[in-house]
């Protein structure tokens, strides 16, 4: 009987566009640049774009997970600043200890927001807003408001070096992307995370450790933001807690959403997030290369965001 109902029909084009909208937009932009932007198709340009996108991409990976649980993490920018501020404080003990401290700082931030969300029951946007406001303040307190130049050669190498022609930071981002993508797809935790985002009450009734899952998710986001902060610091060759991660939360959210992860949870698209981050990066690069004034740049960005999400909105029938 079942066979009769299940007459598969070709998925309409709208569905395909919905799934691949961000790649299409990315493709169009690349083609545009190939035609109209000088020196675009060079290896060094490609490298520049990839290197520049890394901090936001890394933060966006964590953001994608949090959004998958029907949350949002506004604190990533401040956590980046915090990790940037912590790094030089402990470089005297060597690079590894300093990095560990910075990562620990990120993890603690995650514990803080995760606990507020999962245990205290505060809405994610506000819980992380508190850290957005307070976190950067803390970073500036730690750094005494000052930017510090980095002299640790290993850290500097991390920022500007490359392996087999591929910049180290890009490798780091690639590895993290694979790991997070793997976690989402193939691990129990990843599947449970998505379930909690899909229906929290049903997940709790199915015996999932909802609180633990939520806290771990925010911790992952915090740690990834801390890594993003370290990468940004290494790239800049200076720890600048006032500027690093500024508005990174909005860029990360944009990358995630433009990449097709819905804000109401229950779905995480890692590859889409990468494409979303690249798209936003390429937009801003294009605007700079064509020397557009800031005003025009902002308007163009706005239009592209809307068009990209319009392309992948849920189809008409059965929309909820």
């Amino acid at each position, binding site marked *: 009987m079942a066979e009769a109902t299940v007459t598969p029909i070709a998925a309409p084009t709208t569905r395909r566009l919905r799934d691949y909208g961000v790649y299409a937009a990315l493709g169009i932009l690349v083609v545009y640049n190939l035609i109209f932007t000088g020196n675009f198709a060079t290896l060094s340009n490609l490298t520049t774009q990839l290197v520049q996108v890394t901090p936001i991409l890394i933060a966006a990976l964590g953001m994608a997970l949090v959004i998958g649980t029907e949350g949002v993490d506004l604190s990533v920018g401040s956590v980046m600043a915090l990790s940037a501020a912590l790094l030089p404080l402990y470089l005297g003990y060597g690079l590894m200890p300093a990095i560990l401290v910075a990562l620990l700082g990120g993890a603690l931030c995650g514990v803080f927001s995760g606990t507020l969300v999962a245990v205290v029951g505060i*809405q994610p946007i506000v819980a992380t807003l508190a850290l957005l406001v307070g976190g950067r303040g803390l970073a500036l307190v730690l750094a005494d408001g000052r930017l510090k130049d980095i002299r640790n050669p290993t850290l500097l190498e991390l920022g500007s070096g490359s392996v087999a022609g591929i910049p180290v930071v890009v490798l780091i981002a690639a590895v993290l992307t694979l790991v997070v993508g793997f976690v989402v797809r193939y691990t129990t935790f990843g599947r449970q995370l998505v379930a909690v985002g899909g229906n929290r009450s049903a997940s709790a009734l199915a015996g999932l450790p909802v609180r633990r899952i939520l806290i771990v998710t925010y911790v992952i986001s915090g740690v990834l933001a801390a890594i993003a902060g370290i990468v940004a610091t290494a790239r800049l060759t200076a720890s600048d807690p006032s500027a690093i991660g500024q508005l990174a939360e909005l860029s990360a959210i944009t990358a995630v959403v433009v990449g097709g992860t819905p804000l109401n949870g229950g779905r995480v698209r890692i590859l889409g997030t990468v494409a979303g981050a690249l798209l936003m990066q390429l937009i801003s690069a294009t605007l700079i290369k064509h020397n557009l004034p800031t005003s025009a*740049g902002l308007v163009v960005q706005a239009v592209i965001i809307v068009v990209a999400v319009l392309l992948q909105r849920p189809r008409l029938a059965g929309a909820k």
Partner: protein
Amino acid sequence: MTATREKAAVAVADKGMTKREWIAGLVQRRGSVVVLALVVLVSSLSFDTFATVDNARNIAMQSSFLAIVALGMTFVIISGGIDLSVGSVYALGGVLAAIGIQWGSVAGLLLPLVVCGGIGLLNGALVAYGRLAPFIVTLATLLGARGLLLAITDEGANTRLMPRDAVLTQIGQGTLLGFGYPVWIAVVLFAVGVIVLQRTRAGHSVLAIGGSAEAARLMGLPVARRTVWLYTASGLLAGLSGALAAAYSASGVTIVGVGFELDAIAAVVIGGTLLTGGAGTVGGTLAGVLLLMVIQNVINQIGTLSSHYQSVVSGAFLAIVVAIQAYLSRAHLGRERST
């Protein structure tokens, strides 16, 4: 048999709430007011320059612009949406008022209202008919409105002044009974807001849409049309607030409003409105706005806190206030069907 069945029907009768639950419920719904009262009390005792008429005037005036923006935000959030564009729209409203006033005060008021209302309308249409997530739509208009602002001010370089004797400027700067007109305007708007939300069908339908947009649609409410209206109203209020702020400072400053949306959201949420939509009060938002302003005032009362510590204190305060709110609200919901 029938008789007993009738009696059994009463089995579903209300089982009533205990007094504790009732009080907790009240505190939750008015939690922000309770916290506000506490903070004001403690501050009055700690600083002798806190509980003064002048200070009250200052706080009222400072609050009025954020309050007007937060009012629109309250409705949008109750409907289950969010409006991130208000900060840019607020700035744009101010600049447009300063441009429009060269053709008279009416133009100075109408120009920002028309344009900002138009941006709200665009937000609403994209959310309601384009079925896009409000977060991302209004994030785009946040950028777009700022771009527009820069475009009409020569990349922000051109700040227009508003003639001091114009009626609009007077509305921004004049006072009535010691309080500035913007304060009174905010008060009137909030009174209207309370009535609209609690006593009109339209307001009721906003609660329903936020509670469950799908159910509201199936129950035959004009969900799309309402949504468009809500975002339009939010844009209008942000524009109005911007115009009033410009009048207050007699200039269309281009650098204002950055991060204003987060203040407005924080005020709304501190006021007890659920970001998931479906529940919230206009009065709570007012208390939320005042709370934010009082915190800032208290930091200034201390007078020696470094700017870095100021952010730390604000962040910590925000976390504590919402934690208390969450605790109270859980005490209220208690044993409901929550899991």
